[in-house]
């Protein structure tokens, strides 16, 4: 099971283990300029989205910022 923001992204049978963070972000349609990602409580550096591979048991927090302040 791989969780993103508390939700199991593999619940419909699609496996994300072995896919990169960048691949997941593209599939989930995230705007990479507006996000920060923590994987199991550790920041994933922006430069490492392509080389960071998801593994079973991972928990991702994808913070997607909206404008205003």
């Amino acid at each position: 099971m791989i969780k993103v923001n508390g939700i199991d992204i593999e619940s419909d049978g699609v496996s994300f283990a072995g896919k990169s963070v960048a691949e997941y972000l593209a599939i989930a349609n995230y705007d990479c300029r507006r996000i920060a990602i923590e994987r199991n409580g550790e920041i994933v550096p922006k430069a490492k989205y392509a080389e960071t591979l998801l593994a079973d048991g991972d928990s991702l927090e994808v913070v997607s910022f909206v404008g205003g302040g």
Partner: protein
Amino acid sequence: MNAPSREEMHAALVARQGEKNVEKLQAATVAVCGLGGLGSNVSIALARAGVGKLILIDFDCVDVTNLHRQQYKANQVGMEKPQALSANLKEIAPYVELETHFVRVTEENVESLIGNADIVVEAFDNAEAKAMLVNAVLERNAEIESAEKNAEAANKEAAYTKVENAEAVNTKTVNSESTKNLKSENLKRLQYLVAASGMAGFDTANTIQTRRLSKRFYLCGDGVNDVNDGIGLVAPRVMACAAHQAQTVVRLICGMENDG
């Protein structure tokens, strides 16, 4: 009328917040990145609460369109925001130490601007600027932590090798040298980050919350309501979010959030 003395203001704070907390607040440095609806309100709350030093950063000037929610006055339109906010803060809390930067925060200058702060407040209005700063601060923390781990491991190994061949008497010297090495590599300090996302519109203020996303990263706001959806920013809701940020900063400084 003359402003109260430093001692009078200190005593008034101690009576309300407690001496230990006031001491911790007085010793703290907080960087406020962006001095709009969030940052101007956060700064005023922190100055009132007795934070010793604020680093105020913004690249913009006060505009008439800011006055409905930001802590500036009509006669300050056209002034650089850091300078205008400094003037207002000094009227409220004359003994707060202020450092101002009239500059846009970028990946290149971020270390020089916020490197000395204990806590960084992300208070930009632009979503991409928010993401840039959050990534920069969290990546910076990760680098410091990994450097600390490496130094610790290297020192342990060095100490072990030396001790193996040394007299027991020399052990102490070796250990103290190792500690010195470790410290000299640790000049950069880990920071707490308090960011905000989602505070536009006329919705209830009750949906604005503070979430701790990881050990040193807090996020305030409703997470959803985007100013770009056509809904504007309304003063009380922005202030509610700013208040969440400021309260989180105060709790962090006073050691009330260090539970893991």
